[in-house]
């Protein structure tokens, strides 16, 4: 079996390529280049796609941030308005309370200062102390 090997090597030795083979291959290269996507063009497309996607993401997050800032401002304004309104209400209540207390005190003072009609002695004058 081993003795067959030299015969096989001789029978299967390399054959020269047909005449003009290299030229035919080289003449097909531009066609192949047109059919196949160019590596640098592919990379360029990839870079542009990534840049576009990045730009979209940045735009989206910027918009979100702007909306959040607007909402925060509105919330702060609302809180301030409510705080101011609350203060006004408290002040008005205090004023109303103070006014009624003052009115009650004044009324009492007036009651006290007004002499009674059915008694000669004023109620507020003390009785004369008996002399011993």
């Amino acid at each position: 079996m081993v003795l067959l090997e030299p015969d096989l090597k001789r029978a299967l030795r390399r054959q020269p390529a047909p005449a003009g083979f290299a030229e035919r291959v080289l003449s097909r290269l531009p066609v192949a280049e047109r059919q196949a996507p160019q590596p640098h063009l592919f990379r360029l497309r990839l870079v542009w796609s990534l840049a576009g996607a990045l730009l979209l993401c940045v735009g989206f997050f910027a918009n979100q941030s702007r909306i959040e800032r607007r909402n925060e401002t509105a919330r702060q304004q609302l809180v301030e308005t409510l705080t101011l309104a609350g203060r006004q209400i408290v002040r008005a209540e205090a004023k109303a309370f103070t006014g009624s207390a003052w009115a009650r005190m004044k009324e009492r003072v007036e009651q006290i200062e007004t002499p009674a009609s059915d008694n000669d002695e004023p109620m507020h004058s003390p009785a004369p102390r008996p002399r011993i």
Partner: protein
Amino acid sequence: MDFTEIVREHQSMVFSLAYHMLRNSASAEDVAQEAFLRLYQDRAQIVSDQHLVHWLRRTVSHRCLDILRRPINRPHLDVSELDLPAEPMSADPFADRMLRRLVSALSPTARAVIVLRYQEDLEPREIAELLDLPLATVKSRLQRALALMRAKLTQQEGPLYGAARA
């Protein structure tokens, strides 16, 4: 290296691999051209001369196996070898032709193993790597193919062939 130089340097190896596997000059040239065009497209991946040769052998072998495994597109055996490229005169052209015919009668995988072993002088380990086959499979295909061819040679040529060789 310039691509033109690569084609000129390796065209014989690529064409011969395809020709010995397909036994058809036109199909072999198609496969060889296709292999070089693919190499041109993938040339950025090639890192060394050894890698280049490995890549070409692998691409051509697998392409030929694909063709041979398709029954419709299986190339017919040449009735005559008139379309053979000009080859150097052999000591025994009849024996060479007979051996090539025997090789072409083998199964596709066995044919690929034999061609890579005796045309390219590759070790079974390298053939296994090229064809994505286990080493044991390559060795068994090789031995079986050789035994089969020897048996057929003995049968066709008579016991004298075997006796003379032995």
